[in-house]
């Protein structure tokens, strides 16, 4: 096994990367929460989902985390009555994205929490290394 403390920092950084990718997806969903189609009856923006998987890293002999894939949410779109809209069908209904802002915000909070936890472990591993180095100093 390579140096466990540097492995710890590498693992945490993989976690940070995964969580920031997740935050990107959340912001994409939030930004497009009202993005409709262009022509009449067109499908609007569909919510994106992100999944993680753990991947064994041979160099560090530990499981890192990586983004498995970004998919789309298959749940049905909501419709709103808005006859003047360019994307409205003949009955005057516009398909709206299946993005639930509250859900995205909750996801954002969770992302934040996980990011913080990863950062905390990384800082702690670094402090441990620094303490070891301080032994040599005096």
């Amino acid at each position, binding site marked *: 096994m390579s140096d466990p403390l540097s492995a710890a920092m590498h693992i945490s950084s993989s976690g940070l990367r995964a969580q920031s990718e997740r935050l990107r997806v959340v912001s994409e969903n939030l930004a497009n929460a009202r993005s409709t189609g262009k022509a009449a009856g067109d499908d609007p923006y569909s919510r994106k989902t992100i999944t993680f998987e753990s991947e064994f890293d041979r160099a560090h002999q530990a499981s890192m985390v990586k983004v498995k894939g970004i998919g789309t949410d298959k749940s049905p779109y909501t419709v709103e009555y808005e006859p003047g809209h360019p994307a409205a069908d003949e009955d005057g209904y516009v398909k709206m994205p299946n993005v639930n802002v509250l859900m995205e915000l909750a996801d954002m909070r969770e992302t934040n929490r996980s990011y913080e936890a990863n950062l905390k472990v990384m800082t702690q591993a670094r402090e441990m290394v620094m303490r070891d180095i*301080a032994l040599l100093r005096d």
Partner: protein
Amino acid sequence: MEPVFLTKLMSHNNDWLSVRQATIAENIANSNTPGFRSRDVEPFTSVISKTQLAMAATNSGHLGTVMEVAEPTDVKKGESWLVTHSGNSVSVEQELMKAGEVARNHALNTSISKSFHRMYLASLK
């Protein structure tokens, strides 16, 4: 043979703590991975009880007993604080508590070895 076994014990314990820190990092990084089972290293007491006094060898190539390095093992189902619907059994709070424990013990170890070092230096002056 080391005159003071304590320093060796401390460095061994520091090794164990760093393995544990790496395992905690692994758990936290995978805290949102579906199906990931939380892992922990075996307790230090069980690692230390498995090691015996090293036998003297005339050649470094001969078989001897070396201090084992701890290996991460799966946490039992009941010991985990939280199992989510996706089958992930990592509780971030639990992991952070473990990380705090590791940091505390490491600080203790390094400060003890520092004071030993001061004692050695004082005897030289």
